[in-house]
């Protein structure tokens, strides 16, 4: 978290002070990538870096010496919050999830507020999501247990994060909601813009832009924020490539990068990322979980798949040459972009980029089988 000579906006030195913490931290809470009604909010490897402030920080000697002390103070607060959350989860499991359904939303809201006071916005967002699970339809006890278990895992990760390997420790820190800044060497490449979509909640608009490095073969995510109801500033055209540098954020197996200096304007590029079949896509998500168990979805490109209608209005993306298929997530299945995909395919194979996770596959961009431009689906 220090000078790396990269021309990126720094958010590290903007350590929130306790009094206005609720404002900055609550913005960061929702930016910490999980709150959001759409499944797309649970995007792969990324939304957990804090937004911090939007202005360039003023790095004076006074703040530089105060920063480590503030960091220690914050760590202590987070530990207190984590301990409290563990206690509450234990209470919940003691009384049983069935009782939790009758409690109502107020309990979760209060717990989330305590997490924000503890300066752990990532935990606050996850707690709020817990509150929404009992009302989410059949099968909710299993889903609630899953989310509680993962939250418990995150808590344990924090409590012992000195013993974790560096990458995992960084992932735990950013999932908790501590600010992180991009480190590491800048990677210059021709980045093809794969997809761009926005998720909205009451406080923030989060824009996710997926990039594919045509030379390095890497898939990266750029996050950009805007006030609720407004579009964020950064906007890149899907299907075009730009020559730019990116710097990765720390953390094992996460794909978030910060966009650095750009050396060209976006130009149309007929390239597509190399794809795989449904089985490999599911396997890749599984492997990604080894680095980051809290990941909900992983970016993959499927080649030669056909959208197939399955039972009750849901869809699958079926391998054109095989017998396997990935289900489309229910949220994506009810959007208009899916019909664009079906129309583009017309029963024939297409190439689709999207996020593959435990709820299914969310298609974001499609290309026709032959030459043709990318069709955004979101």
């Amino acid at each position, binding site marked *: 978290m220090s000078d790396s000579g990269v021309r990126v906006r720094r958010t590290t030195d903007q350590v929130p002070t306790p009094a206005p913490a609720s404002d900055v931290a609550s913005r960061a809470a929702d930016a910490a990538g999980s709150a959001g009604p759409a499944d797309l909010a649970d995007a792969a490897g990324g939304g957990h870096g804090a937004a911090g402030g939007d202005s360039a920080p003023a790095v004076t000697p006074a703040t530089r010496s105060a920063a480590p002390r503030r960091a220690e103070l914050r760590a202590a607060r987070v530990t207190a919050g984590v301990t409290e959350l563990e206690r509450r989860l234990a209470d919940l499991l003691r009384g049983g999830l069935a009782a939790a359904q009758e409690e109502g939303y107020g309990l979760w809201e209060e717990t989330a507020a305590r997490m924000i006071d503890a300066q752990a916005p990532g935990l606050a967002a996850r707690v709020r999501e817990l509150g929404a699970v009992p009302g989410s339809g059949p099968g909710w006890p299993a889903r609630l*247990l899953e989310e509680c278990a993962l939250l418990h895992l995150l808590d*344990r990760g924090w409590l012992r994060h000195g013993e974790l390997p560096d990458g995992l420790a960084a992932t735990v820190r950013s999932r908790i909601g501590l600010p992180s800044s991009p480190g590491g060497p800048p990677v210059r490449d021709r980045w093809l813009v794969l997809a761009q979509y926005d998720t909205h909640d009451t406080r923030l608009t989060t824009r996710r832009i997926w990039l594919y490095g045509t030379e390095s073969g890497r898939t990266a995510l750029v996050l950009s924020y805007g006030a609720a109801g407004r579009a964020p500033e950064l906007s890149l055209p899907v299907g075009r490539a730009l020559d730019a540098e990116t710097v990765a954020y720390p953390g094992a197996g996460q794909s978030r990068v910060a966009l650095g200096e750009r050396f060209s304007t976006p130009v149309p590029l007929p390239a597509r990322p190399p794809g795989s079949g449904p089985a490999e896509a599911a396997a890749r998500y599984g492997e990604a979980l080894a680095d980051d168990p809290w990941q909900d979805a992983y970016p993959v490109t499927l080649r030669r798949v056909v959208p197939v209608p399955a039972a009750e209005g849901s869809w699958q993306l079926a391998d054109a040459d095989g017998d396997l*298929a990935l289900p489309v997530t229910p949220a994506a299945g009810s959007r208009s972009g899916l019909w664009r995909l079906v129309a583009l395919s017309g029963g024939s194979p297409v190439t689709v980029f999207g996020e593959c996770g*435990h709820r299914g596959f969310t298609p974001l961009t499609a290309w026709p089988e032959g030459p043709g431009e990318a069709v955004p689906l979101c």
Partner: protein
Amino acid sequence: MSSTFSATATGPLPWQELVTAALLGTDRRTPPGLPPGREAPAALLDAAAVATVRRRAGLCAAPVAVRPEPAAPDPRPPLPPAAARRLVVLLADRPGTGVGRRGAAPDLRELLPQWLALANERGFAAPPEALPALLDAARGRTDLRPAALAFAGPRALWLARLNPDWRFALRAAQGGGELPSAEDSDRVRGLWRQGLFAERVALLSALRARTPAAGRALLSSTWPAERAEDRLMFLDSLRTGLGPEDEPFLERALADRSRNVRAVAAELLSALPDSALAVRMGRRAATCVAVDVTAPVPTLVVEAPHECDAGMERDGVVAQPPAGRGERSWWLGQLLDVAPLRTWPGRLGGRTPQEIVALPVADGWQGELHAAWCRAAVRQRDADWARALLGAPSAPEAGGPGAVSLAERAKLLGTLGTEERAAWVAGFIGTHGLSEAFQLLGVCTVPWAGELGRAVVDALNIARDAGSYPWSFSGVMGLAERCLAPAEADRLEGLTAIPDETEGAAPGAGGYWAEAFQRLTATLRLRAAMTAELTP
């Protein structure tokens, strides 16, 4: 991952057990394999975390459901990229807030029908990713459906089978591309004998459109055996490609048991001026109208028929008049509708249609007489009589000689050629202004010919100088945006400036007029751009 999984456990618990244990709560029941007491919830969560991550990591692809058949390929050339982008913009436009002030931006939804017609004419295929938006637009606007479905092609039908929202596309197509060709007479006969009613109607219509004689032959082969309602529908489909060769068949249908079938047969025969029915009606009508040479000026004398006999009823005259009309004038009207117009010059002293129309009519029959002749001229597509009934466009009364109404004039215009039509309407507008010209403009072919366009623009200019507000003319302005030739945009540039306020003008009218002209110019330029983009 850290884990405090108890060393006394015999193995990982199955997931369902964990969920049940969590639902009940560890206070109520200690789950098997976990330490009891205070540590139980944490141990349960540990076990659940391991199980969750393992389950998620082990997710596999599912077996495929039934695959749909691929859509039929579209042989048409793809749309140029600029036109494809334009289509997306046209489809995405939301309708404005209705009447009143519309602002200076072109109304894109009104341009969509024109764009589709041009794309269909040029024979382009729809880009597949635009089909959902196109089908949604066509679902909301029935006037758009034929053009949209023609443009969308076979893939739209394939999509409509998958999405119940787009069912209308299947109804409209009715097995469109799967009909046997006309030469395949065995399949045609087979489908005719055994198909469902909807299929047979589609088959007959398609056949009739291509080879009318074959359609009629097919129908007459099974005519006596059909049910009355079916006979009615099939007979109606003979309307397309109606010609003198259909007369014998229709004469036989005049003797049908069902009254509705007889009525339709009479109606169809009346559209054939040479048929025996038309000749009979002409003789009857000729006895009703004559020229009275004894009067100071030769006058037309009309005597309505005194009775409606069986012969008349067989020929399709409805005996019962609608409420409010006298019997005899009702019968006279029907006779005059059907009587061939060529009987009149001979009957009325060798006069030309113009002279006949100019004759005064006794006893107040002029309205009936001329209205009936209008209907006859439209039905028999007689351009001479239409010209005579229309009169000169610059005639002082808006309703020409003999009180021919505007609606009838519009229909008469339809029988004239396109240039003649445009010239007539231009003359009309030059004399009478725009206030009554909306219906007449509606029948002119799009884009408007040069002189018609100029006449409209001049009339708009005069209306602006007269000081009114532009929304009194919003109908004509809307038509002008859609129909004015795009080349006129340059001439209109001068009108888009805001003029100085004159005395006695409505306040602010100048600004509103300028805005209206700006919208008109912008729409014309947009249409020119659209046409250019759709050029291969």
